[in-house]
């Protein structure tokens, strides 16, 4: 690392490698270690969120029957039976954990931290101390949410959307006691962590690119991370402010979200004058952009993986960049589509409907470009590639089902039904989570210097792919029947009694899906210690990160990276090999190829 850019190297000189275990692996300032810390934490929470989902699926398949094995853990000491208040807690906490502790921090925290400096040719983040703090500020959140399961009344039960008055009036639900307060504190700390991360990512990407790395030579992964950081910086303060308003409604008796004459348990409340819809506007002003925070980095990662294993340039790089920027812009004016039947002025529904229809457009452009990338390539079906292709395949479903929701009259019927559940699981689980798995298999050699087992990876992929479709596809059909979300016992209604068998099929597929993830866990840890050693560039990829040692040492590069071209020059006629790394100087004196 003798010739790393002088000024950045000087800035990071003070955290040179030390022998102290605590400084190297715990309070590390190195972006790669922080990325791995995020990765391990989020994977642990992924399994927690998965177990919570198993509780939900058990109840829907076998209502009120004691749950074997997990019952006592999830449902308390009532012989493993899931009580109705525990069911609403399960749905709330499954979503909270998956969104705030898994999808957002694994994309931005784990992959963002690990990849951004490596892919742009920097030796670390712009502000390493802030980076370390962004990880450690997750721990108060872990503590608050984790401990909320054990307080009186249990964890929050107001849904992950936390709509008041249910979440504010303490008498309204058992989980509206301390559980809800801890929920708000937890989400606030996740917000602080993300905020620190997003400032760091923006600064790093703008300021610390290696010589020759223009903005239009950045890999799509970095573009995804960059736009995500921008979204977070603008949207998060709104959620944090709203969280504090709800907290003060709960703790000191303000009335932002409680109307005049609010009742709880048949007794009038003293506060009033507020408006429950205000929370929904504020919440979705953050949480709709958050949907893109949860998918743009995944889209970027998928673009990189597809191009690498199709051995072909990414089709339409600039339209891809423009479309994610378009998503970022439009993402701020579509929040109202979560509120079509909320009681918001129906005239607003019209404008939100048109903007929502239009936000489907950039996603469509991206999908066609991914197909264009596969066209005419030489596709290598490695494990990361299979996950990336499954992202495209599943994202088509998730994208198309979104059109039903954007159509306001149809949304009147399917709003709050399983149609919605099917849609967002196709986008977030079948989409984003598959991209995350693909990303782990793809960058594992760079993270640990060893390869994961490809055959077991393919077994893991096949089982996951088939089972998740069996779990989420039939949910569209449930939704068409009007089957609502969040009902502890839907068979209470005549209309839904015939859906028990479908739910049992879904649940058994879900149990198998959860079980099949153990293949991944074993492969991950075994390969970490005993996998075959990976060279610098096991996939013969172009990206800058593959020119660094595996794993990269402190300061990342053992040479000064100079960038000559974009990251997608696969199969270029200029060279004999089918790849042309970004740092490889042109053979003749050619004008630098700027795509």
């Amino acid at each position, binding site marked *: 690392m003798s010739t790393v850019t002088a000024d950045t190297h000087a800035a990071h000189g003070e955290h040179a490698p030390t022998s102290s275990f605590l400084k190297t692996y715990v309070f590390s300032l190195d972006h790669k270690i922080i990325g791995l810390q995020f990765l391990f934490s989020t994977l642990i929470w992924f399994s927690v969120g998965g177990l919570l989902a198993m509780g939900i699926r058990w109840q829907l398949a076998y209502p009120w029957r004691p749950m074997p094995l997990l019952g006592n853990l999830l449902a308390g000491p009532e012989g493993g039976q899931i009580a*109705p208040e525990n069911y*609403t807690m399960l749905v709330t906490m499954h979503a909270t954990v998956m969104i705030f502790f898994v999808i957002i921090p694994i994309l931005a925290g784990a992959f963002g931290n690990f990849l951004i400096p490596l892919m742009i040719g920097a030796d670390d983040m712009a502000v390493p101390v802030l980076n370390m703090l962004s990880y450690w500020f997750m721990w108060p959140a872990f503590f608050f949410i984790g401990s909320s399961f054990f307080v009186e009344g249990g964890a929050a039960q107001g849904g992950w959307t936390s709509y008041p008055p249910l979440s504010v*009036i303490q008498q*309204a639900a058992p989980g509206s006691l301390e559980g809800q307060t801890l929920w708000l504190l937890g989400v606030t700390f996740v917000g602080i962590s993300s905020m620190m991360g997003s400032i760091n990512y923006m600064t790093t990407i703008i300021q610390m690119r290696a010589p020759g790395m223009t903005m239009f030579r950045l890999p799509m992964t970095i573009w995804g991370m960059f736009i995500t950081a921008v979204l977070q910086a603008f949207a998060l303060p709104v959620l944090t402010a709203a969280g504090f308003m709800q907290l003060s409604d709960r703790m000191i008796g303000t009335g932002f979200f409680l109307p005049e004459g*609010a*009742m709880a*348990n048949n007794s009038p409340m003293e506060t009033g004058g507020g408006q429950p*819809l205000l929370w929904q506007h504020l919440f979705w002003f953050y949480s709709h952009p958050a949907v893109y925070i949860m998918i743009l980095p995944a889209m970027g990662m998928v673009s990189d993986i597809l191009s690498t294993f199709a*051995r*072909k340039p990414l*089709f*339409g*790089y600039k*339209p891809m960049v423009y479309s994610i920027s378009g998503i970022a812009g439009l993402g701020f004016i579509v929040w109202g589509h979560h509120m079509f039947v*909320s*009681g918001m002025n*129906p005239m607003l*529904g019209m404008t939100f*409907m*048109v903007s929502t229809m239009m936000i*489907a*457009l950039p996603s*469509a*452009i991206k999908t066609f470009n991914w197909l264009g990338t*596969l*066209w*005419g*390539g030489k*596709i*290598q*079906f490695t494990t990361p590639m299979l996950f990336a*292709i499954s992202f495209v*395949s*599943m994202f088509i*479903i998730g994208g*198309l089902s979104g*059109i*039903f929701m954007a*159509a*306001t*009259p*149809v949304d*009147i*019927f399917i*709003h*709050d039904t399983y149609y919605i559940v099917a849609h967002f699981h196709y986008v977030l689980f079948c989409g984003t989570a598959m991209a995350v798995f693909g990303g782990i298999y793809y960058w594992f050699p760079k993270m640990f210097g060893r390869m994961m087992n490809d055959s077991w990876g393919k077994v893991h992929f096949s089982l996951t792919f*088939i089972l998740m479709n069996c779990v989420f*596809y039939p949910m*569209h*059909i449930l939704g068409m*029947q*009007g089957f*609502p979300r*969040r*009902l*502890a*016992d839907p068979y209470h*209604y005549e*209309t839904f009694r015939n859906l028990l068998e479908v739910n049992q099929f879904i649940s058994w597929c879900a149990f198998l899906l959860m079980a099949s993830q153990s293949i991944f866990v074993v492969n991950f840890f075994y390969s970490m210690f005993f996998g075959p050693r990976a060279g610098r560039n096991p996939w013969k990829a172009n990206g800058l990160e593959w020119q660094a040692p595996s794993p990269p040492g402190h300061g990342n590069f053992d040479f000064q990276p100079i960038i000559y071209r974009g990251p997608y020059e696969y*199969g270029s006629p200029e060279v004999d090999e089918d790849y042309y790394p970004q740092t490889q100087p042109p053979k003749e004196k050619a004008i630098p190829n700027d795509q």
Partner: protein
Amino acid sequence: MKHFWSFLFFLVPLFGVATFVFAPHFNIWLPRDVSEQGRTIDNLFMFILYLTGIVFIVTESVLFYFLWKYDGKSNKESVKFSHGSHALELVWTIIPAVTLLFIAIYQMQAWAADKIDAPAIPFTAEVTGRQFNWDFRYPGPDGELYTQDDIVRTDGKLYLPVNEQIMLKITSGDVLHSFFLPNLRVKQDVVPGMAQKMWFKGKKTGGFDIVCAELCGWGHYKMKGRVFFLPRDEYDAKLVELSAEQDKMTVQVPEEE
């Protein structure tokens, strides 16, 4: 097996189409429509289903074809070194944009009819959601709410005249609920501090489920009601019966759940 992976991905459109083809045969489809405006919503749903269905089958088939044709093991041709095509980008931007805009404009009429253009008629009844019950208040003989002759019911049964325009006033007594009648394709969140209007016309007599569609606490799942559509004469007789029943009672104590 050669081309195993491309065929695995082809399972997606196969499974997807099969699910939607077989679901009606297992009686899992849009629930029976007993309303006047439901047909518009169902038609719109089916229109979008066909449209997205075609796009779904075409794109997934293209994906399958590319995976099959350009499998690195069998494809001996050299890679098509292309960074994109401006013409193609324009085509696949403009066509979806026009289609999406068409859907948006096409269904504005239905949205307006369901949520904006309220008929100027008096309230047939008032619906109040509370944890965990639906309460109903009928105006009584004078046709006005909140007068002495109002009929208040807390048994979760709503009686309405069939084949007549209904206008409901919807309020909440405590937290958010959502008044959802699957067989009539209507849904409206119930917000404390606000009064919502909902209008529809039932076309079939009989009883149908009222579902709460917004999480409202631990008893959310059992917040069930029934709506009964009666011919006008039976409806009038029912209101007289309910009124008489109410006169016999002295104090209505809300039941503790």
